[in-house]
């Protein structure tokens, strides 16, 4: 893995990589186009890792493991605008009190692509927090499958878990399956999950049309709105490219 003085890592140079983030350290990782790699991240007390993953070309796959100790945070931002099949598996273990992790993704699937994401959080320490939030747009006989599992174990009191997945099916040929699953073995916690998959909302379309916006532009506005929120988590250069991919893709 290559690192610069600003605690910034830009790519993986081995298929099996382990990263130990020291106590109090803040590390930003930007990964672009990963093929068949494993990344293990250990976060010591009070450390923070912002991991940005950008799939933009063909055949990406990454397996990610995160282990979080007290007061540490792992924020994962995943933008998948690649062509071809892709997979991502993320398993984050919130070991100690006040560990926090979020996974936010935007995905555009088209051209018969098959994409599959498996995202899980295990709450072991008390007062731990996890958040899964994802948006996808699917078209052209493509298929997307998202498995999201948040497991709050029995001693993880006052922990919080939320899951939200929304997908738009742009045409009759595309499909999406999303399974946001909560496993709760503790009483004193907060958890919620939501999932919506469907075509473009007729009421949303009618509203935009009623303001004079033509149908194709209205569809673009809505789908852009789905995919765009991920952009501002990325660096300036990637933001420009992401915007071009979103606008070009829809």
């Amino acid at each position, binding site marked *: 893995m290559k690192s610069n003085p600003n605690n910034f890592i830009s790519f993986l140079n081995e298929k099996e990589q382990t990263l130990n983030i020291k106590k109090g350290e803040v590390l930003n990782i930007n990964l672009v186009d990963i093929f068949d790699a494993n990344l293990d991240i250990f976060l010591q007390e009070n450390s923070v890792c912002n991991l940005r993953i950008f799939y933009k070309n063909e055949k990406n796959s990454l397996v990610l493991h995160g282990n979080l100790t007290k007061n540490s945070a792992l924020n994962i931002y995943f933008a998948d605008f690649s062509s071809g099949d892709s997979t991502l598996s993320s398993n984050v273990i919130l070991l100690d009190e006040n560990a926090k992790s979020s996974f936010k993704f935007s995905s555009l699937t088209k051209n018969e692509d098959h994409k599959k994401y498996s995202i899980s959080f295990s709450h072991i320490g008390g007062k731990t927090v996890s958040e899964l939030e994802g*948006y996808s747009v699917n078209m052209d006989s493509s298929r997307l499958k998202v498995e999201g599992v948040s497991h709050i174990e029995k001693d993880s009191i006052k922990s919080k878990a939320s899951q939200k997945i*929304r997908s738009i*099916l*742009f*045409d*009759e040929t*595309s*499909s*999406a*399956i*999303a*399974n*946001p*699953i909560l496993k709760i073995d503790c009483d004193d916690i907060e958890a919620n*999950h939501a*999932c*919506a*998959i*469907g*075509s473009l*909302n*007729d*009421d*949303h379309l*009618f*509203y*935009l*049309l*009623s*303001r*004079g*916006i*033509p*149908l194709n*532009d*209205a569809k673009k*506005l*809505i789908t*852009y*709105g*789905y*995919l*765009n*929120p991920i952009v501002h988590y990325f660096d300036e250069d990637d933001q420009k490219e992401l915007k071009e991919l979103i606008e070009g893709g829809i």
Partner: protein
Amino acid sequence: MDVLEIKDLHVTVENKEILKGLNLTIQKGEKVALLGPNGHGKSTLLNAIMGNSRYKITKGKILLNGENVLEMKVDERSRKGLFLAFQNPVEIPGVISADFYKSAIQEHSEKRVSLYQFYKVLDDASKEVKIPFEMFNRPLNDGFSGGEKKRNEILQMMLLNPKIAMLDEIDSGLDVDAINTVSECINKQFNEKGTGFLIISHYARLFELIKPTRSAVIINGKVVLEGGPEVYKRIDKEGYEWIKDEFNISIENENEKAMNQVSIGVCATKEIIKNEK
């Protein structure tokens, strides 16, 4: 002179006929109060005029300055000068309000609208409706209160400057101050731009402030009575019973919702493989 004419309009919703031969004309320089018991077709009329595909027009005509509105797509109706302020404005996740307004204003303009021009009109309008400018960087209506959504509808009316504005219960959910703000905006639009208004409300408070020039009452899917402001004032005091007695009209009760129209929410994982369309 801008004029919207509705002639012998029949509209069905889910195979049930709601409008049954409705006639009404609204001209520039008019504020028409549209009244009627619940479920008799007021909102149906406004949605049908705007082109909501759930409302099927089976007979009749809608003309805007002599042009056939029924042949126009929804967006074209807007660009021709029709505007509908929704009773329940939708929240559209991710669509940033300012981006949406700019697209809409651009569609209504023959020339390219510069960023400066856009922000100037938006800033002016936001002050009129008393919505903080920062809120326009948020997704459309996302996290807005009920009152903010209604004021946001009025803001869009001001930005798009329609020939005929249709307001569907714009005052519902507004507190006293917000009703005053909305009324001032309606009056300003009327006085300065000459926009014609068709306004549904169940409350005299709004009508007292905007002073409609005319009243029209829809009962059983038809306009059964047209008159001056005295009509809405009397309805406010006496309800609709006097119309039944004086005009010998039997008022149909709003049908109770059949059980098969009630949806039960289920918190569960959804797996919808194929788009229904």
